[in-house]
């Protein structure tokens, strides 16, 4: 299905010309992003090179345990990364861990059980990485929105608690909105895929010399799998984190200021 292309470090270095363009643009217009761009370039180089060697090792070893270990590490890192964006949500880490783990196992389990991809590291690792990455973004966006909404609408929440609503009932409207926020980006990009942008997997396969129809079909499978995984992640993260704003006696932990 795929051919293979060789990329040398010289070619990677050549792409830095475009990074230089970004730095110049930032400096010229005073955007102040030069340092961030430099850090991003350095980190992406180190992280991707490291993961490249790890993946190479895992492909060579062909060990299920190593694959599971790598995916577990991704889930944990993903949860910690998403927690930074969910700073307003008390105890966000556990809901995030549960959300990413469940999104990964359900989605990968399903695509494997249905025979959509083969149970080989070569397929499971990249698909797992995409699933976890997208789930992380969706869960982080959803919890970020939920935290802001609960803080901004504490008076309304408390007014409904005062009428005998449970904490779940009081926050249900906000959970619904945050769930939507978490999912909408992927839903929108899925709508426009092929028209406004070419998704990464397809681009990668085309660059590697694959048949375009094969590339499109694999991309569609991934997009559909990702829709499921972001829904699971946003649903689990908001569902579990929503209760963390309240005490067991249905009181806001951070009540509105009088």
């Amino acid at each position, binding site marked *: 299905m795929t051919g293979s292309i060789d990329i040398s470090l010289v070619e990677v270095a050549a792409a830095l010309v475009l990074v230089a363009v970004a730095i110049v643009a930032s400096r010229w217009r005073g955007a102040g992003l030069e340092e961030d761009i430099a850090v991003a370039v350095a980190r992406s180089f180190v992280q991707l090179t490291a993961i490249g060697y790890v993946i190479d090792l895992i492909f060579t070893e062909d060990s299920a345990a190593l694959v599971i270990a790598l995916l577990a590490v991704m889930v944990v890192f993903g949860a910690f990364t998403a927690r930074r964006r969910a700073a307003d949500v008390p105890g966000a880490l556990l809901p995030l861990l549960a959300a990413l783990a469940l999104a990964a196992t359900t989605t990968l389990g399903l695509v494997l059980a249905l025979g959509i991809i083969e149970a080989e590291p070569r397929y499971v690792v990249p698909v797992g990485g995409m699933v976890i990455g997208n789930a992380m973004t969706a869960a982080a966006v959803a919890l970020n929105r939920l935290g802001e909404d609960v803080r901004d609408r504490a*008076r*309304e929440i*408390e*007014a*409904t*608690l*005062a*009428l*005998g*609503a*449970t904490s779940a*009932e009081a926050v249900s*409207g906000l959970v619904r909105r945050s769930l939507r926020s978490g999912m909408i980006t992927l839903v929108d990009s899925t709508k426009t895929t092929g028209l406004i942008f070419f998704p990464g997997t397809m681009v990668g396969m085309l660059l590697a010399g694959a048949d375009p129809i094969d590339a499109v079909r694999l991309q569609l499978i991934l997009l559909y799998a990702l829709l499921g995984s972001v829904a699971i992640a946003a649903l689990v993260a908001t569902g579990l984190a929503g209760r963390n704003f309240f*005490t067991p*006696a*249905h*009181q*806001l932990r951070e*009540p509105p200021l*009088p």
Partner: protein
Amino acid sequence: MLFELEDVSYSRQGEVVLRDLEARLPVGASAVVGPSGSGKSTLLRLLNRLADPDSGRVLYEGADVRERDVLALRREVCLVPQLPALIDGTVHDNVGYGARLAGHSFDLRRCLELAGLDPAFGERDSAKLSVGEQQRVMLARALALEPRVLLLDEPTSALDEDARGAVEQTLTRLRTRTAISIVLVTHDAAQARRLSQYAVRIEAGTVAEQGPAAEVLAA
């Protein structure tokens, strides 16, 4: 006695709001008065467990509020907050909100009428009401729960003088037409005199004076 607060202390973000507070609120209409920041609203929130004290006890009809089912307590001892905070939807949706959660039926017409609103308000969009009208819808949705006690936090502070007078009239009429007890928090001593028989004056988180309103609030 309707409520008794025994040696109640409460802090928020490290700041003492109520300190060793001892207060009693009888059946009927009571007022809690005091300057801004004295802890009046916090005291009100302890009565239906929107918050719990750090130490001390709050008794409702002789029993610790923590021994009751918290949701049932809040439906029986219903708090109307200082500023309107309605849900999206019509007035009907709002008035029925708590009643629907509790699985009760409710009489929209009667609730609106008791709150001083025309029954035709039911289909109005709650987002398009004046602040005074919203405050009345807040009252109506509390009444839909058929509470035994209404906790009113500065119910007229967001209103102009005319609307204030109308809400006071509504509350007076409510007292004569129903057996609902009222605990009114207000910074306005004259309003407290007009609307209550018993008063508790708090200053800096502790009770300065309590007793018949006519004595505590003597001008």
